[in-house]
């Protein structure tokens, strides 16, 4: 392993950094949004809303991300006759909906695990259903969600590597291109790809640990 080879390879990989990071941010935003929408819908009093969101959650949790990615990539244009704009959207939607389904279970579980006495106290204080959720349940539940949101964001980062399979030019894509032209460099190339993903993961690992300590402290001491 020599330094000059690293200096050659690393800038090539960095060309894909923009796609990897934007796919991660966009799919994370979709996932967080879906998590709260689906998580709250599953707690709805309305059975149809509960069943429909339950179906979404189980389908996306029950199948693989890579299958969903290919399915959306090939199926959406064929099935509905619309082009999704670009592969970028197919990737972002697949990752967003997949992890949104997992995270919605986190949202639901956290809200349900807020002690029942809290709801009763809020009712006793004559709060409306919305006030109860916003002022009493949510601030406690969100803290409990933080570590899992961190963990799943790291999972999403790992999932973004799949978008190279549908032709997006991310970090792995440039790594594959270099490997195909210079097979003997493969070990160094993939090692650097892994290191680059790990560098991206480090802040997320740090945030997850931070989230763990916040969730342990709870509301009262904050």
């Amino acid at each position, binding site marked *: 392993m020599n330094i000059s080879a690293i200096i050659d390879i690393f800038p090539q990989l960095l060309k894909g950094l923009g796609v990897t990071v934007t796919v991660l941010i966009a799919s994370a935003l979709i996932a967080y949004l879906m998590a709260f929408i689906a998580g709250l819908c599953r707690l709805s009093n309305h059975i149809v809303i509960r069943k429909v969101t339950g179906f979404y959650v*189980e*389908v996306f*949790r*029950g*199948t*693989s*991300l*890579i*299958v*969903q990615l*290919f*399915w959306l990539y*090939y*199926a959406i244009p*064929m*099935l*509905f*006759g619309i082009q999704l704009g670009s592969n970028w959207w197919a990737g972002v939607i697949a990752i967003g909906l997949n992890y949104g389904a997992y995270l919605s279970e986190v949202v639901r579980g956290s809200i349900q695990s807020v002690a029942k006495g809290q709801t009763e106290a809020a009712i006793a204080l004559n709060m409306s259903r919305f006030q109860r959720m916003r002022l009493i349940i949510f601030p406690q539940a969100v803290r409990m969600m933080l570590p899992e949101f961190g963990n799943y964001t*790291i999972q999403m*980062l*790992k*999932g*973004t*590597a*799949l978008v190279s*399979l549908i032709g997006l030019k991310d970090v*792995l894509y440039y*790594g*594959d291109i270099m*490997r195909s032209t210079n*097979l*003997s*460099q*493969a*070990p160094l*190339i*993939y*090692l650097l*790809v*892994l290191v680059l*993903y*790990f560098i991206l*993961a480090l802040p*997320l*690992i740090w945030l997850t640990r931070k989230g763990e300590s916040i969730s342990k402290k709870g509301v009262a001491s904050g």
Partner: protein
Amino acid sequence: MNSNYWNWDTFLEALPIVLKGLGITIGLTFTCFFFALLFGFVWTFLRRIPNKPLNWIITWTMEFIRSTPPLVQLFFIFYAWPMIPGIGVTLSPFTSAVIGLGIHFSTYIGEIYRSGIESVDKGQWEAAKALNFSTVDKWRRIILPQALPPTIPMLGNYFIIMFKEVPLASTIGVAGILLMANTYGAQNWAYLEPLTIVGIIFLLLSYPSAILIKRLEIKLNTRFDKKATLENMKKGAMM
């Protein structure tokens, strides 16, 4: 329904072809999981070595493997490993997948074992010492029989997660259901039906398994709880 986009004839034609890959997909899942279960022990025991620098290295190696994409790790094993001078050997796609996914998941499994071992009561360790058990006997007869059963539901969940990660191996040429579907799609320019079949197969297998594990979890919990309550009752009676 028979539109330009969805064709039942294609569906029926693709079904047996995709199903041909099912044996490999399931076989790979079990083999990877077995490897991960074994290798998980290696991590658990490496982390117990009382040496600060070594411990730090092991912890961060696990973190590295866990937070980088398994897809890249597969490519590393399959494309890069044979190129490493001295130790490099060419591995079949199946073996590469077993090693790649096995090692990736072993870092999670190692943590599960650790949580199980840490939940064994301190008195049990002391009792083993007091009864002059050898290290092997201590682990085999006292610690592991108590540490492992409560981790079974968690391990089961990882089995399902692994089942869903196994189609990654199609990218290096393991002929499971996803590769079968993609090959059929490329030959007939019809991806929708075969990929839908793959999705349905995953759903049919993973959803019931998840429910089964949930039941197992409830069963195990009540069993351990019962034991705990019985012990507390005994303690109460003695006092």
